């Protein structure tokens, strides 16, 4: 049965349904108990599942990440809620040097089925240390998988797939998307990792957008439609594995592409997507340089107008698309 629920509720529902079925799944994180987590995602869960399985931890990101890895290695399926994705800076050794590598280092013995859920992105006025989009870091690490859902529907299905996966998966939630809604089935369902979603079909320009940028790209597309410009919006949904085929096919069709994410442009995953296209057979179909949009080369500022200016907005996307079209 379908009904409209929020992205936040979708995440919670995905966890709760799985926890009802599988005793090995549990959540740990800071303030996820009666407080419900910094954004309220786990609200109500400790009441249903108890303090053992909705485990409030001290402020010890490295320690709890490592505890998650160790418990995964010994038979549990932990979900680690990292309160803000900026704090991955503290937990990274356990995620990158332990979780991602254990299976390989041990020659295929042992597995680390864990999900790290964490909110990222700017727009809440929380400034430089609470607004980053650092997903590019983890995409660079073999052994990890990386998910960035943009809708409630995707969030629920992708989180189910993440929880089912026997590998460490980093699941990026976007703070500004928590309150957005879409139609979501009540029952469990899984969206395979590595399957991009064409959020809008079009013929003139391909826009590859992630997380909140999917919505801004769709807005831009709606605007441009009025001018007779037809935009195809592709949401990779999972960065690792990346559905290269869907992207390459679209670009081969449109011949023009804009890649947009909120993360700082320099060193962002947009570089990977853009250069994957530049390396692919789509190259021969390109009618214009590949455009990339991303965050400004500064920390995220506090002031709301500056903060907005830091990340690509709808007009920026429209402008980039038009520039791409004007290039013959």
């Amino acid at each position, binding site marked *: 049965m379908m009904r409209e629920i929020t992205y936040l509720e979708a995440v919670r529902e995905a966890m709760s349904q799985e926890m009802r079925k599988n005793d090995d799944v549990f959540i740990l994180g*800071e*303030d996820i*108990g*009666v*407080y419900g987590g*910094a954004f309220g995602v786990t609200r109500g869960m400790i009441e249903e599942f108890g303090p053992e399985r909705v485990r*409030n*931890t*001290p*402020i*010890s*990101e*490295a*320690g709890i990440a490592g505890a998650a890895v160790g418990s995964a290695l010994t038979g549990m399926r932990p979900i680690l809620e990292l309160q803000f994705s*900026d*704090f991955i800076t*503290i937990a990274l050794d356990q995620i990158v040097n332990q979780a991602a590598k254990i299976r390989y280092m041990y020659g295929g013995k042992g597995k680390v089925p864990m999900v790290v859920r964490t909110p990222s992105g700017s727009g*809440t*006025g*929380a*400034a*430089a*240390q*609470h607004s980053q989009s650092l997903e590019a870091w983890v995409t660079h690490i073999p052994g990890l998988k990386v998910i960035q859902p943009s809708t409630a529907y995707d969030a629920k299905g992708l989180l189910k797939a993440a929880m089912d996966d026997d590998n460490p998966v980093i699941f990026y939630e976007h703070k500004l998307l928590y309150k957005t809604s879409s139609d979501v089935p009540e029952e469990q369902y899984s969206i395979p990792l590595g399957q991009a979603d064409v959020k809008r079909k079009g013929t003139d320009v391909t826009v590859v957008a992630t997380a909140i940028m999917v919505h801004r790209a769709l807005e831009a597309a709606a605007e441009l439609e009025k001018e007779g410009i037809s935009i195809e919006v592709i949401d990779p949904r999972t960065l690792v594995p990346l559905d290269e085929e869907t992207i390459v096919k679209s670009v081969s069709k449109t011949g023009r592409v804009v890649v947009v994410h909120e993360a700082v442009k320099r060193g962002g995953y947009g570089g990977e997507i853009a250069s994957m296209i530049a390396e692919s057979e789509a190259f021969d179909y390109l009618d214009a340089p590949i455009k990339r949009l991303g965050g*400004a*080369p*500064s*920390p995220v*500022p*506090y*002031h*709301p*107008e*500056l903060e907005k*200016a*830091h990340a690509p907005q709808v007009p920026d996307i429209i402008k980039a698309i038009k520039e791409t079209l004007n290039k013959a």
Partner: protein
Amino acid sequence: MKKMNVPIKITDDKLVDLYKEMWLIRYFDEKVDEFFAKGMIHGTTHLAVGQEASASGVCALLDVEDKITSTHRGHGHCIAKGATADKMMAELFGRTTGYCKGKGGSMHIADVDMGNLGANGIVAGGIPLAVGSALTAQMKKQKYVTVCFFGDGATNEGSFHEAVNLASIWDLPVVFVCENNQYGMSGPVKDMVNVEDIATRAQAYGIPGVVADGNDIVEMMNVTDEAVERARKGEGPTLIEAKTYRWKGHSKSDAKKYRTREEEKEWRAKDPIKRFKSQLVESGLLTEEKAEEIRLAAKKEIEDAVKFAEESPMPTLDDLLTDVYA
């Protein structure tokens, strides 16, 4: 008349100043609370209402050259270390006259000139910074002391451990002040730490650990005096635990389900400002009338700060890319 038992360097005038300072801190945060409730300020904030005695008591012992590192709950430390409310409020309003020109906001106010090396949005993030500041003092043979504020929750971060260890092996001139307000964001210290007093953790580093009543500014001054002197003499760091309580929620939206209303009431009864006033009145340094005058002056100062902030200019988009590199 009961003479107050305070460190020698604390003059009677200073005591009266401190009384005003505590009200400034209280009113600053009350005002911020009001603005957030009304949605007039962007972002988030963490208020230290109820914790004024530790900020003021500790900083009372510091000179301008001395330094502090602060936390997300840092408005009080900031005022106590000499910042002015107008530039702080302007920062919260995101104005160019703010301490950070509107780029930092509540969690990043710094006042480097007055020795405030900054608030910090990363729990325990400032502790290693304080150790680095103390290292500079030692290496440059400068006499300043660095005070490092942090919460009870921060003591569970690895950074706390690594930094205190460094300070202990190098005998650095730093004073670690843990403001134990009983909770992290929601995590009760009694569930997150397996010892009664956080000061006990000093034993792991072979340094003194002192428990103090964080709601008693006089006690805070005395324990700080000793720790600062020790640091200045090159004898190394001290860990002070100030037992206190935050009256408000953790940040702007907090249903406070993790604690009871009774507990809150008990702690409100231990109001550090009220207590200090009694001490001042008992010792003859203040009359009730004078105290009231001071309170109102503090209130006015905060209102002026708001006006200053409101009338200050906004940054322009050109400001986005400045100040990234020196």
